[in-house]
């Protein structure tokens, strides 16, 4: 394959080019500036802001570049926007947190931008090879970030487990790609979708798709490949967990939706059945295990498994409602989960690394703003209107019902009720239980602002969901 690569291709990449350029710039800067300089932080913020602007500007023009292997504009830009927004909030919350954990090393920002580059490539991939490139770029950065607080045993454990199991999953994914390439003679995702109907009867093709599915399900953290999630999220630096659970999951779902599009699911019925079972299991297992957790981070980790189940429901629907729902959901989930992890990162101190639910008793009196914001994020995660979390669920379930998966929607709704138990318990503990959480941290101005922003966005999206749905509808 000998493709002429032109400047137009690079320009068309838009946000990807910005973030990748930013990563390279940081590598150079890192060796020039003093270690304590806040320059790296501000450059990262600037790069992500420019990337978000660039994504917003290019969302209306969809196309392909690099000989049709990379998607530009439209779908890719929408997700680029989600990633930059999430990463921007994570970046803003990071310096104070890293300082507390005595790991204020500036390499953090290089790795963070590298991870975002990988996510954007995944959401823009129109070829399995490109997808794999993005996936590994993101994953390797995350392996390192998970162990970034290297003095901490749990952080090291987290990195190690994530790396081992991640590598394991990658093996299955690659094998799946090889089998698909073997039957189709091409790695093009567009071609995979268009010729799925013709090859649906071939066992080799089905097994190939099945192995691809294993890789995806691992990356989105759904049952039965979810067991790494609680250990990794608990041990990794809190803001890294925030990014992994939102950006990482969104990127995996973005590619998931591209590969397992409507054509594939409609022709390969067994695959769809398996996915439906996995979605139901994720919702059930994630929610039920979240109930008995005592650590807030582990609770959020299991709830993230449950959310993977909800979102998977939208993928299975394989219709416009479902796809719009997945896209809307991921934006909402990114905002609310980064918010929840953000509150935790502020509450943690050098001595209290892992906030337990009981530690939050009486928080509404000592930290009224943080408690209020946390309550808002919990309401949105539960899916209570008028917050965006409600419409995310509403759209994916509507899609599932439209596609004849009413039972899946019913499971989802029932499990949402179960989730209210542990989300709202946090609110109850913060507001109605006596306690004196004085040993928890306080927010800086920037920290509070970067929590208020997603809170406002969640309310705005919940009141006017059509603004985003009008965007996502253009992407197909």
């Amino acid at each position: 394959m000998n493709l002429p690569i032109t400047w137009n291709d690079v320009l068309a990449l838009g946000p990807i080019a910005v973030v990748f350029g930013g990563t390279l710039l940081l590598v150079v800067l890192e060796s020039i500036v003093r270690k304590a300089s806040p320059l790296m932080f501000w450059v990262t913020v600037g790069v992500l802001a420019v990337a978000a602007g660039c994504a917003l500007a290019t969302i209306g023009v969809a196309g392909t570049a690099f000989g049709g292997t990379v998607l530009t504009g439209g779908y890719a830009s929408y997700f680029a926007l989600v990633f930059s927004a999430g990463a921007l909030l994570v970046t803003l919350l990071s310096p104070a947190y890293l300082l507390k954990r005595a790991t204020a090393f500036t390499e953090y920002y290089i790795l963070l931008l590298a991870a975002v580059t990988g996510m954007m490539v995944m959401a823009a991939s129109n070829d399995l090879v490109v997808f794999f490139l993005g996936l590994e770029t993101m994953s390797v950065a995350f392996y390192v970030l998970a162990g970034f607080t290297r003095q901490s045993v749990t952080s090291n454990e987290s990195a190690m487990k994530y790396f081992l199991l991640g590598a394991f999953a990658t093996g299955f994914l690659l094998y799946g790609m090889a089998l698909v390439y073997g039957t189709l003679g091409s790695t093009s995702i567009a071609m995979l979708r268009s010729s799925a109907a013709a090859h649906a009867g071939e066992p080799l093709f089905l097994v190939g798709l099945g192995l691809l599915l294993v890789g995806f399900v691992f990356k989105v953290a759904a049952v039965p490949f979810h067991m790494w999630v609680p250990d990794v999220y608990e041990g990794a630096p809190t803001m890294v967990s925030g990014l992994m659970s939102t950006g990482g999951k969104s990127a995996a779902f973005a590619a998931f939706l591209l590969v397992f599009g409507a054509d594939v699911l409609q022709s390969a019925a067994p695959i769809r059945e398996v996915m439906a079972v996995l979605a139901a299991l994720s919702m059930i297992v994630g929610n039920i295990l979240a109930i008995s957790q005592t650590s807030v981070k582990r609770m959020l980790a299991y709830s993230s498994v449950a959310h993977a189940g909800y979102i998977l429901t939208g993928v299975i629907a394989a219709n416009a409602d479902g796809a719009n729902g997945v896209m809307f959901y991921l934006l909402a989930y990114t905002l609310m989960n980064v918010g929840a992890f953000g509150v935790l990162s502020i509450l943690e101190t050098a001595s209290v690394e892992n906030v337990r639910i009981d530690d939050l008793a009486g928080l509404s009196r000592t930290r009224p703003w943080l408690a209020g914001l946390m309550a808002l994020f919990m309401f949105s995660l539960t899916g209570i209107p008028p917050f965006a979390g409600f419409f995310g669920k509403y759209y994916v379930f509507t899609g599932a019902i439209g596609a004849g998966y009413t039972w899946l929607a019913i499971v989802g709704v029932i499990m949402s009720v179960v989730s209210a138990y542990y989300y709202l318990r946090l609110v109850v503990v913060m507001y109605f239980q006596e306690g004196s959480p004085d040993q928890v941290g306080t927010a800086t101005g920037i920290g509070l602002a970067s929590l208020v922003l997603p809170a406002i966005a969640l309310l705005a999206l919940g009141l006017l969901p059509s603004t985003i749905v009008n965007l996502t509808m253009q992407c197909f």
Partner: protein
Amino acid sequence: MTYELVPLAVLLPFIGFLINGLLGRLIKREAVIGAIGSAAVGIGFLIGLNVLFSMLAADPEHRTHVVELFPWISAGGLQTSIAYQIDPLSVVMLLIVTGVGFLIHVYAIGYMHGDPGFWRFFTYLNLFIFAMLNLILADNFLLMFLGWEGVGLCSYLLIGFWYDRNFEKGTTGDAAKKAFIVNRIGDFGFLIGMFLIFTTFGTLRFAPVFAQAEAFPVGAPIMLAITLALFVGATGKSAQIPLFVWLPDAMAGPTPVSALIHAATMVTAGVYMVARCSLLYALAPATMTVVAVIGASTALFAATIGLVQNDIKKVLAYSTVSQLGYMFLAMGVGAFTAGIFHVMTHAFFKALLFLGAGSVIHAMHEEQDIQKMGGLKSHVPITYRTFLLASLAIAGIFPFSGFFSKDEILWKAFAGGHIVLWAMGLFGAILTAFYMFRLVSLTFDGEPRWAHGKHPHEAPATMTVPLMVLAFLSVFGGVLGIPAALGGGNAIEQWLEPVFRPALDKLPHEGHASHVLEYTLMIVSVGVALGGILVARRWYRSTTGVPEGIAARFPVIHRVLVNKYFVDEAYDAVVVNPIQKGSERILWKGIDVGVIDWLVNASARFVAYLSRTVRVVQTGVAQGYALAFVLGVVAILGWLLVH
């Protein structure tokens, strides 16, 4: 460009609400808070005037504009936008709400002076204006309903504004709850009506709904259902039989609230809604009859209660219920313009009466019992004169504004052949004149009956200037609707004609009635009103003993009237108590605690048990995770190959 400014008129009160609501506690300066609140409404009035003038310049057929802001909800077949319809009808309402609203905001700066909740008061007041403007400017039923609920919420908040005070047998909170719950019953009707409209027409926007309704025959059953359901909503919001009971209790709120919400604007929302849906009502003649009968009955019924009340605000409250009855009578006999005209003149004189009453209460240091007043004429001269003018207007004396609007309603009822309804309205007019001048005489004339320690004084300029402006409007507001019989052009009828044309085309045309008959009826109604005034002044200017004598002669009737026909007691016995008892014994202790709670607790314990048990699988050992991983892969591939 003119029309595009209308959303700004809606938005400004909301901005005022946000500023005063979020920062009011910090601003503290009453002048600043009051200025923000008043300006937010006053600018809206200027925008409304601007729209009015450019509409006047336009051809009558091209005065309807829809300003679409953004799509709001799109779910399945339901597409709703935040969009405002600006036409002659909504402009009239816009000017009334912002104009009278502005004056009352200014008045409240003086009235609420020194109240610890000053900022909170203006916050609620601005939120109310925002909701009310959404109600009257909406281009679809859903946005109208948002406003409809919003004004109900503000009404609730403002009735219970002095939540630490007692009111009658309970607290102001009880009065607020009563208003809210009774309104909910009406709102339920509105909702049903809205659902029926959506299933019938597939849209909630006014223009397509009315366009499709044209195709329905007069008397179509679905139109009957829709209009009746909507009318249930109107009886709640506009305090008609049988849902009027909340309005007298709403007087627990501060007086500017009574003037703005419970007299001039919110309570007319039901009338506006019927007028907006005039075409649907015209297609359901049976509903029109119901509306007319309910209206005339309420007009008469509330007036009789007003005869014997001694709380200055209660008299005005029953008077409001009665006047709203006239408006519905107008709607029911197809005199839509006359009804809207009465909404307007009533807004002027009733707002003035309430503000005057507020000034009296202010002067008397929170005394509201007119039996303990008297002789206030010389102490509060401006209040007295403006109050007198408003009373003449509501009594329907020529040439004050109330004469033109009320007489138009009675004339249309008579000309349409509804002689009984006309007679009820006429009798109500006598009672109106009587109870208003009973009020005037007891309050301002005769000897002082208050304690010697009090020193009544006239209110500050922020309160008296709005009184004078409203007095001017109450006197001269009628010129907009001078009927042809008196050589006028009936400007408001011509103005609103295009809006009501489709409805009027569906109604049977009455024959041309002679001017002689119209003159005769005018003389009759002014004559009886004068009679009512003279009797009232004779009996109540000084202690004559006549009223007491009559009360002693007819003790049963007197008791029934003083106790407001025992309607509250009847509702308590038939509806409120059974529901309370039933929900306590059966629903709460039986079903909720016994069945639902048990089920919930049992399932919660089961899930928690499950959670603890399954948790053991999560060992933390990576090899174990990998093993589970492989098992998962095997299961998935097995499934795929078997199928």
